[in-house]
C-alpha cells in the first residue's frame, strides 16, 4: 500500500513538473516575442475580433507563465491544475472548431511562431497535457510548497496543543 501511494505521489509530481514546465515554456516563448505574432495566430481561429485577439495576446502568455510556475512549485496546486485544465479544454475547443471549419491555420500559436505543428498534432498533444492536469490535480500535492506550508502549520499546531 505504501509503495502504491509512493508511486502515485511520484506520478503526481512528474505530472505537475512536466505540465508546469510546458506552460512556463509556452508562455515565455510568447511573452518574449512581439504580441502581434500571437494576436495574428489567434485571429486565424476566427473566433474573436482583432482587438480581443490583441488583448488575449497581451494577457494569455503571462497567465500561462504564472499558472505554470504555481503548478511546478506546488502553490495552490489543485487550483492551478484546475485552471490549467480549464485552459486546455478551451484550447482544445478552439482547435476542434478550426479543424471542423477547415480554417487555414498555419501556426497553432501554442508555442509562439517558432513551432508550426499541424492542428491535429496539437490537438492530440493537448489531450496528453489534459491527462497530466488531471494527474497533477489528483496526486500532485506531495513535495509541494502547499504540503510544506501545511506540514509546518500542522507541526506548529501540534506544538501549541502540547500540555505544559
Amino acid at each position, binding site marked *: 500500500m505504501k509503495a502504491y501511494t509512493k508511486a502515485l505521489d511520484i506520478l503526481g509530481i512528474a505530472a505537475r513538473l512536466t505540465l508546469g514546465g510546458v506552460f*512556463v515554456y509556452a508562455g*515565455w*516563448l510568447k*511573452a*518574449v*516575442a*512581439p*504580441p*502581434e*505574432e500571437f494576436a*495574428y495566430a489567434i485571429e486565424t481561429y476566427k473566433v474573436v475580433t482583432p482587438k480581443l485577439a490583441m488583448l488575449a495576446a497581451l494577457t494569455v502568455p*503571462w497567465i500561462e*507563465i*504564472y499558472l505554470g*510556475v*504555481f503548478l511546478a*512549485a506546488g*502553490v*495552490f496546486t489543485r487550483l492551478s491544475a484546475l485552471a490549467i485544465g480549464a485552459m486546455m479544454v478551451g484550447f482544445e475547443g478552439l482547435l476542434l472548431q478550426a479543424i471542423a471549419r477547415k480554417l487555414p491555420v498555419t501556426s497553432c500559436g501554442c508555442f*509562439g*511562431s*517558432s513551432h508550426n505543428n499541424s492542428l491535429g498534432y496539437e490537438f492530440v498533444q493537448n489531450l496528453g497535457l489534459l491527462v497530466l492536469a488531471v494527474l497533477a490535480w489528483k496526486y500532485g500535492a506531495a513535495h509541494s*510548497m*502547499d504540503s510544506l*506550508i*501545511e506540514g509546518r*502549520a500542522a507541526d506548529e499546531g501540534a506544538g501549541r496543543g502540547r500540555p505544559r
Partner: protein
Amino acid sequence: MMNRKTALKVFAAAALVFASTLATLLSRSYDLGPARPAPAFRAFGPENAKIRIEEFTDLSCPACRTAQGHVMQLLKLYPGSIRLDFKHHPLLELHPWALHAAVYSDCAGRQGKFEEYTGLLFENQEKWSQSREEPVQFAEYVKTLGLDAEEFRKCADDPAVRRQVEMDIAESGFKGVDATPTFFINGKRAVGGLQLLEQARHFDNLLKE
C-alpha cells in the same frame, strides 16, 4: 480573514509572480527569445556565422541607402563569416511609399531578385520616394529585371506578404527601433552606418574568439 496557511501560500504565489515576471522581462531586454530569421530571400550568409547582423531598414531612407553600401562591403570583406537578416522598418509617417516598396521588394525576392530590386530602389530613391502618385518605378523595375509581372501582381495583392512586412514592423517596435537603419550585431544595437562601422572594427577579434 485569511488564515496563516493561506496567507503563506499567497505570499509564496506573489514571490513566484515577481520572480517570473522579472525573469521574463530580463529575457526580453536581453533578446533571449528564439530568433526570428528573415525569409530566405532576405537572408545572406551562412546560418551558423559567428557574426549575426539584423538590419531594420526603410527603402525610402537616404541613410539606409548609404548604410546598405557599408553592409554589402562587409559581406564581401568577411565572406562566410557574417549572417545578415534584412528586415523592413518602413517609416510610414515620413515616407508615403515605403510600405509599398517593402512589399514589392519581397515579391521580387520571391522571384529570386530581392537584392537587385532593392538595389534599384535605393539607387533611384529620390525619383520615387516622395512621388504624389504610385511611382512608375515599381512596375518599371519588374520589367527591367525580367520578373513575371502576373506573379508579381498576385504576390503584391496577397495579404500574407503584407503580413510578413507587418510582422517585421511589430518586431522592430518590440525591440524599440525608432530610427533607420538600425542594426543588431550579435544582439548589440547600432543606429546608422557610422555606428555599424564602429562595431565592425571589432569583427576580426570576434572571429578570433
